[in-house]
């Protein structure tokens, strides 16, 4: 248990059910808990910058890589210490967050967080990890237009500002990703990291075009495709009129008749996104809102794959 009262250590929040975690406290509190848990599970810095600098020594623990053992101390004191490093703060990251109306939806309010809430917590954790690495992190929220722009900063106080922005961001209207992604260009002068978090219920061609442009500018691009489990597997009453909360377009069908075909459609859509992103060197991760945050962070912050 840390000073904030959030359980850490053995009870790793990053691996708990997101809904359960969300019940433990406010955004800041649980985000710290999640990040603590996440970082404690790592044996080395989650992210490598362009250079690293020594931070402190600590006692060797089984599993530590031998290359970080300080041999001089061993020679002097006959004790095993390892050197710990911190990455240098020169990464600028921009999180582009979809707060359209569709993001506010959950198929099962009692068991699964709405996509928006889930994404909020995920972004907060991600930002904390980055800021702790001295990476400047900014945030752009958008629905059918850009709603807020928070320039990237590396201070811990900036993280709290990000939290405030996230907390204020309410679900908007439709979804138009291109303007928001274009705003990133103005925020990231140097090559940096762009994290695009959305349910991707948008114009794929336009969104991919904007993402390709960012990639072309040398940015590392990470797409987190947020999906509710109920969007992966179709369920519902015997027959229902399914209505899009954004466009109000509707389809009448019997879920049990269409479940299989729908599942196949989703698989194809995800596959197309994944292939399109890989083709342009964009990292793509499909995230369902019942996935523990730690797992998503581990996937998202893993070394980027080589562009295809």
């Amino acid at each position, binding site marked *: 248990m840390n000073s904030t009262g959030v359980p850490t250590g053995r009870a790793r929040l990053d691996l708990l059910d997101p809904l359960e975690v969300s019940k433990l406290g406010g955004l800041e509190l649980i985000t710290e808990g999640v990040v603590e848990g996440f970082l404690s599970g790592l044996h080395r810095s989650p992210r490598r910058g362009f250079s690293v600098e020594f931070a402190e020594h600590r006692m060797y623990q089984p599993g530590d890589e031998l290359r970080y053992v300080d041999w001089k101390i061993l020679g002097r004191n006959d004790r095993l210490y390892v050197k710990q490093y911190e990455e240098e703060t020169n990464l600028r990251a921009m999180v582009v967050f979809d707060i359209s109306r569709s993001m506010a*939806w959950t198929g099962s309010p009692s068991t699964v967080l709405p996509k928006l809430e889930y994404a909020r917590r995920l972004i907060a954790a991600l930002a904390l990890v980055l800021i702790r690495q001295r990476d400047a992190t900014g945030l752009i929220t958008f629905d059918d237009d850009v709603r807020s722009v928070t320039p990237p900063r590396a201070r811990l106080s900036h993280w709290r500002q990000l939290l405030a922005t996230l907390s204020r961001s309410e679900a908007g209207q439709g979804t138009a990703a291109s303007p928001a992604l274009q705003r990133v260009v103005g925020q990231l002068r140097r090559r940096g990291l762009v994290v695009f978090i959305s349910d991707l*219920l948008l114009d794929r061609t336009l969104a991919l075009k904007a993402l390709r442009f960012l990639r072309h500018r040398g940015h590392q691009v990470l797409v987190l495709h947020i999906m509710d489990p109920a969007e992966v597997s179709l369920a519902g009453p015997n027959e229902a009129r399914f209505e899009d909360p954004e466009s109000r377009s509707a389809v009448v069908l019997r879920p049990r*008749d269409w479940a299989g*075909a729908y599942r*196949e459609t989703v698989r194809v859509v995800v596959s197309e996104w994944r292939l399109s992103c890989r083709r342009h060197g964009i990292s793509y991760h499909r995230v369902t809102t019942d996935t523990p945050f730690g797992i998503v962070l581990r996937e998202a912050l893993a070394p980027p794959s080589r562009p295809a």
Partner: protein
Amino acid sequence: MIGFLHPWVLAGLAAAAVPILLHLLARREPPTVVFPAVRYLVTTTREHQRRLKLQNWLLLLLRTLLVAALVLAAAGPTVPVSGVPGHAPSALVLIVDNSPSSGAVVGGTPQLRQLIAAGRQVMARSTPEDALWLVTADGIPRRGDRATLTELLNSLKVSPRRLELGAAITLASDLLASEPRPGEIVLLTDLQASALSPAAPSAPLLVGRPAVAPPLNVGLGAIETGTQPWSSDGGRVSVTLVGDSGRQVPVTARLADRPGRQALGQAGASVSFSVPGRTSGWWPLTAELDPDEFRLDDRRVTAVRIAPVARVAWDTTSRFVAAAAEVLAANRRIARGQEVTAGGLGPGSSVVQPPADPAELGALNRALAARGINWSYGTLTTELAFTDSGAVVGRQSVIRRYTLQSTGSGRTGVLATVNGAPWIARDGRVVLLGSRLDPAWTDLPVSAGFMPFMDVLLNRLARGEAALEHGAPGDPVILPGLVTEVRQGQRDWRVEGGGQFQPPDQGVYYLLAGRDTVGAVSVNPDSRESRLARATDGQARRLWQGARLVPLEEAGDAAFSYASRGDLRGPLLWVALLVGMMEVGLASAWRRRP
């Protein structure tokens, strides 16, 4: 043509509309569910919509078919099919022709036994759901279950009665007319050509007939004993032979228990015998042939009346009566005496003709009334008419006649009629003629039949006796008015004069009035039965449209399956099961992967 055992169930076909109604009802506005990924649903449905629509229509069709098949099965449909082992509940009339010709022995076996065996096979194919009738030569339809009718079949004997096949088929059609079940007529017969008559069967007709040709036969067709009564000297007997064989056969004629007289004869010819007489009375006369394959026509019987001739006093003023009496007297058929008065009303037996002078009619009627005679003369009619043929007189023209009026309670004693009106009537021993025996009144006195008529009139009718009648077993005979009893051997029947009597079998039936025997009916099988020649299948088909003829041995298998109506309930239930399984299978498969 498809038929139904329970057509009213077809109203349930309306239930076939239930899936369609459910389908339409299910099209009501469904609840709205907010779902962001509608674009995925649109993509999914766009790709599968046509297939799903097809699937839905197919499921709807299967469900409608399922209901329709169940309803149709409940209605009990039947269709004409052949070669099926079972059959739908049917109504079957089995006609077994046990007429006299069925007694012929063919191939060492009586024909009837083969017919019965075939009948048993037909019955064996019936089910408890079938309605069954058995019709035999007696013409009485008997309804029963398989066991009862099989028992009847087993006890069937050769009937002395002739069976008109057309009439039997018509009777069977009438029986089936009120049956809702599909009907069938099975006729098992020797297909004797002379028994065929036209009929329009209302149901499929199966005719089982023997494959083996019948034997050539010679039988006794008729036996004539001439004018009666015979005197004690005897008389002549003429026996006519009928049949389809040309061979000569010995014929024996025997009066009562006297030794018989024999002669050779052949079919189509007659044989005459001189038979010695006996004492007065009624005597049976038998003609016989040696046994052959068809026994029933090898013996024929009749009756002979032997009595002294009538002693007659005749009216010499009536020219034709007098002439006839003198001829009869010259031939010793009558003698002069006072027993019978011919031409007028005498003290005893009388043959009364109307007076030539109408003025005398009143006195005659009063005299008749005084004698207690229940008949009198009425008005004079002068129009050409003809006598109705009968045992007493043949067909003769009548120009003038008095109507004969009965003053009693009925019309008993009518011996001959003209246009249905009494022309000769008798009460006791008084015979009234409606016309004078004169060519100005009737042609009878100048006809060939006049002498036999006068013989019968004087020797028998005026003496209270009846003319000899002939008949066939089962055929009704009109009894003379004075008859009170019929006797044959040890059997006797109380009867009413003027009524009908049906002699059950071959033999001589004596007619009694009180204790006196006044006449006889000789009953013999129809002589047409002696011609055993069989009709061809073509002849039968021409007379009975649509008839199917098969050998007797195949009749059992052909019955019920002949134009038989297969029960569609089983197949329909299988169809319903298959359709149901298809519906469940397809619905589940498509539900898993539309």
